[in-house]
């Protein structure tokens, strides 16, 4: 696995547990279009399959998201990364890390896995070029020691994409 910081592996708090159970049920009842949650017995790590939206550069391509929840979710954001191979995108590094503000500074406890997924899909959909971020190699090298994207001080590229 790419990275999973020690902090995010702490057992879920009562609130986190109850909230995730609810999200899971809501997801099953009303899953976001283009996403499929792979049922496992692990509540703290969700693996979600995402299919590129029709009419976009990623149409019909399948990728996998790994969502890890911290002990104090939803007061803290989940860690969301793409599993290998990550889509070619100006905001997605080859190690799967995603440069998206709501996953870090702009997280709000009112967000859900589902709303995060939709944001990621819309980020993919609005891309005009299949390419890695300019600083990809440097960043990925820096992350070699298994650093979590949540420990990165992100400089958000561009609000439009």
């Amino acid at each position, binding site marked *: 696995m790419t990275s999973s910081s020690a902090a995010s592996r702490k057992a879920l708090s009562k609130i986190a547990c*109850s909230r995730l159970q609810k999200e899971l049920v809501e997801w099953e009842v*009303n899953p976001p279009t283009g996403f499929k949650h*792979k049922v496992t017995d692990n509540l703290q790590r969700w693996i979600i399959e995402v299919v590129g939206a029709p009419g976009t550069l990623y149409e019909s391509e399948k990728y996998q998201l790994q969502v890890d929840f911290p002990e104090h979710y939803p007061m803290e954001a989940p860690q969301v990364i793409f599993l290998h191979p990550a889509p070619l995108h100006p905001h997605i590094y080859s190690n799967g890390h995603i440069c998206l503000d709501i996953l870090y500074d702009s997280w709000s406890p009112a967000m859900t896995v589902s709303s995060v997924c939709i944001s990621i899909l819309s980020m993919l959909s609005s891309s005009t070029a299949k390419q890695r971020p300019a600083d990809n190699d440097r960043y990925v090298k820096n992350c070699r020691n298994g650093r979590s994207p949540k420990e990165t001080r992100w400089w958000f590229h561009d609000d439009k994409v």
Partner: protein
Amino acid sequence: MDEDYEDGHRFHIDDQKNKRNLEIGEMDVDGSNRETIFLKNNYLVKNIGAVVRDLRSLGFTSMTEDAYASAIFSLLKAKVHNLAGDDYRALVLGSIKDWIQAVPLQFLHALLAYLGDSFDCDSMSSGLKSPLASRPSCYPGIDFPSEGLVRWQLRLEYFAYETLQDLRIGKLFEIIVDYPDSYPAIQDLKQCLEYTGQHSKLVDSFISSLRYRLLTAGASTYDILHQYVSTIKALRIIDPTGVFLEAVGEPIRDYLRGRKDTIKCIVTMLTDGPGGNPSGLGNAGDSLLEELNRDSENQESTDYDDDINSDDKQAWINAERWEPDPVEADPSKGSRNRRKIDVLGMMVNIIGSKDQLVNEYRVMLAEKLLNKFDYDIDSEIRTLELLKIHLGESSIQKCEIMLNDLIDSKRTNANIKASLPQPSLSGSKLGGTDVSLDILDATIISSNFWPTIQAESLNIPASVDQLLCDYAKRFHEIKTPRKLLWKKNLGTVKLELQFEDRNMQFTVTPVHAAIIMQFQEQTSWTSKNLAAATGIPVDTLNRRINFWISKGILAGSAGSDSDDHVFTIVDDMNTNGLIHESSEGLLAADEEGERSVASVEEQLRKEMTVYEKFIIGMLTNFGSMALDRIHNTLKMFCVAEPSYDKSLQQLQSFLTGLITEEKLEMRDGLYFLKK
């Protein structure tokens, strides 16, 4: 045989004399006792002894022994039946053993002595003991029993144990019906079985009598449950490990699972005592729960759920207490379940899960609380505390909130009434009916935690409606920003019908009150018009109005339209001759079987549909799944509200429903999505 009996009879009388002699004889210094016995029984022993000797000399040794042995056995058998009989309230094993000592053994001793078979015992007087050294009991008047005599004693006692055991096993059903009065019989039986080891006889015989006498359509579910509980209590005396209980209990449980009212009856048995008598010791009318609580206070640590307090220390204690299962144990059944014989646990076992028990209790509790006039919930609190002890706090949290609602309601109700200016403002006069806030009380519920409430439309009388408005307004002021939403069809109304010549009081539901109040201004209504006026659907109205017809207050007749009825007030007492008292305190709702709370079955269907998409989702991902796996996955994921708390059977019946709806199909024990 007659002669045998005669002999035995006389023998018995002789024996009584002997006994007295013996008692005196014991005071004597030397062994002259034996001489006395010889003298007394001389005649009889000599006669039999002579015959035996003669037959022996003819070569019939074994035949003669068989003859007197069988005579003694049949005498013993008659004695056991005579002593034990159909009285289960006294211990009899002791007196049987005494009798064996006093009668047949004395005779045999004399006979063997006469025959010269046993005089070797004198030579062993120095204290050399026979191979069967431990003398089962002392031999009155016989100083040193011969080996032959000891063997005889063991034979006779074994025969007595077996006879008594067979007798008691044959009547075990009645004995358990009589439990706990029949406790002595159970104790005797326990001792017999310890000696003979024929427990399987008990299991087989008892199961067949259960099948024949209890598990039939004629027996009420309550009777079966009572017998089940008594069986548990009685058998755990005989067999503390619970192995046989498990074998015996299974057919009862299986049978009960097939009955629709089982859960309801269990909950009623557990929770409904006459209540309100905390000081009473062992009241016959106590709820089962109350009784179980006393039991568990007497025993140590009988918590139902192992996992609740399984700290390391407890685990160590349990490990130390471990004993191997009896050989009869069915190895397919986990010994952990068997270790503790917990009556409540065995009741839950019938239902399947404690959550189902709690659900049923919650529905019954809701019904009870919603029909209360006062806020007196002492007995409900007590019951809940007991349930908490046995089922764990988390499972009954919703029930706790419900009770808390009643406590809060009482306080809020008092506040609201105290803070409202009394007659002038809120007292309204409508249709000649005086109503002031004095008459209004309210139970305010946290509806999220109550079972689904049956909502019915109802226009309540304007005067009362105005009171509800005032009340709600005041609530909003006190508890801003919280608001009240009235469930107008729920609650209870005490009212008085005032006729020219009499007054009658009734306790009814708001629906009944709304109906009868319409007859104040207009003495006759068609069902269509009345339905419109009260806001009740016509079919419901026609059903509910029967209450007033059955009380002789209203009379129904066919209207001009075939499906319309006309209801008219009956103003003449003489034509129906009602008795006032009988109509008081009757809750109409109960009579008609109308319930304000949705039944558990209805709720189950509703609750399960939440999981339908979840199940479909799983099957989309996995292709196919076995029942167990679906069950476990749901358990794992649906822990938050609404938590998945259904049993395997409930899930199965729900899935079967999905199959009939052609959403799923099943092959080789696996569920698939229907393509």
